[in-house]
């Protein structure tokens, strides 16, 4: 197995259906340790579906998904192992509204990793400081701005010390003035070497941090390339049309 060791996430010939709807077609993707991937494409192209399959929020019809040597099957243990190792950040934050920021961050380490309260709190404070929100630890999510809430959501995922992070349009529910603070947090994470798959239309972010940009349409990966080449020289007509639209809007 030596030589494949630095491949953290591998998807092979993945097919996904919602009922009769074919949502992912023959998706093949490998992500190396420390690699940053930006996933883009038109609405409904299957970007969310792709990353949600990686931590089994969605089950696939056929194909293989292997994360850090663990093959994702219907076996609950495999699913638990992978969810413990892969963090996810959602468009709508999905913080737990009845818990303080600190409690949000402590819950999973306490219940899943079974660490002591003291250790969970120390970890939570460390990552809250890291996303520069340590001074809001005792507040409830509703008392924070959208950008602050999303940074808490990032800290909450980091508290499980994941080996990879999945982001599903983390800035698209935010007011424009809050987008930067969240992107800066993600850039910091990228610079620290975190393996990341980000669904985003923030092309500035893609240029700055992505090792590869992947374009999806109608459930397929249509093209992938290094950001420079991807933006300068898109191969497919669909990609060109999509980029034209995105850049016109920004």
């Amino acid at each position: 197995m030596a030589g494949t060791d630095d491949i953290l996430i591998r998807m092979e010939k993945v097919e996904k259906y919602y009922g009769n709807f074919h949502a992912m077609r023959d998706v093949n993707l490998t992500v190396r340790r420390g690699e940053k991937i930006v996933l883009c494409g038109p609405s409904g192209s299957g970007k969310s579906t792709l990353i949600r399959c990686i931590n089994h929020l969605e089950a696939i019809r056929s194909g293989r998904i292997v994360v850090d040597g663990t093959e994702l099957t219907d076996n609950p243990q495999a699913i638990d192992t992978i969810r413990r190792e892969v963090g996810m950040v959602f468009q709508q934050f999905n913080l737990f509204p009845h818990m303080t920021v600190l409690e949000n961050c402590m819950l999973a380490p306490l219940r899943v990793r079974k660490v002591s309260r003291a250790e969970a709190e120390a970890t939570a404070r460390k990552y809250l400081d890291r996303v520069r929100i340590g001074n809001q630890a005792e507040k409830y999510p509703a008392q924070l701005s959208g950008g602050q809430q999303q940074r808490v959501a990032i800290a909450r995922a980091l508290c499980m010390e994941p080996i990879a992070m999945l982001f599903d349009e983390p800035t698209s529910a935010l007011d424009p003035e809050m987008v930067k603070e969240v992107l800066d947090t993600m850039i910091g994470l990228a610079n620290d070497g975190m393996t990341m798959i980000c669904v985003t239309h923030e092309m500035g972010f893609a240029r700055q941090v992505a090792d590869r940009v992947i374009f999806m349409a109608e459930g397929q990966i249509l093209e992938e390339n290094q950001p420079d080449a991807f933006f300068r020289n898109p191969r497919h007509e669909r990609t060109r049309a999509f980029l034209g639209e995105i850049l016109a809007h920004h």
Partner: protein
Amino acid sequence: MIGPQELAFLGRGLMWTLALTAIGFTGGIVFGFLVALARVSPLKWLRWIAAGWIAVFQGTPLLMQLFVVYFGLPLLGFSPPAWGAVAVALTAHASAFLGEIWRGAIQAVPGGQTEAAHALGLGYRARMRDVILPQALRLSLPATIGFLVQLLKGTSLAAIVGFIELTRAGQIVSNQTFKPLLVFGLIGLIYFLLCWPLSRLGRRMELRLAAATAR
């Protein structure tokens, strides 16, 4: 006239009304919790059983449920005292209604909460206990209190199997004193004084919840 003796008799009836309500509500909370969990279980057969249980008790009159339990338990070889049979019937009745109220509340918690819990690797217990149920409980409080009021009034049906709670006590006193209007006026007032503050409380919680979710 209504003397101290009659009042004491009515007082005992009132105590039984409160006791039956408390028993039915407590039992209903325990079993209703299980019914609600079964109703949202990943296991299909468990969901079906719970759905059947709810359908039976919501689809038939409480009066009939009291009869069936009261006359049915002895056929099964149990011979509980009248209050025991009534308590069993009220508990079963309450478990179905509370189970359905809480099923709705659990499903009203946004799906993103479950997804976030899954994504963090939380198992079923932690997901329910720490994430879903605390939010569902808050959402369900107004309806739960509303049902408590219903149940309190529903205990008056226990009179039909000869059990002397407040309403039956009133009937007896009224027959003895020939003052039905006075007696039942008094009894109506007692029910009202018990139920109205509860209804108000439920309404206040509902408004507060609406304000909180509108934020």
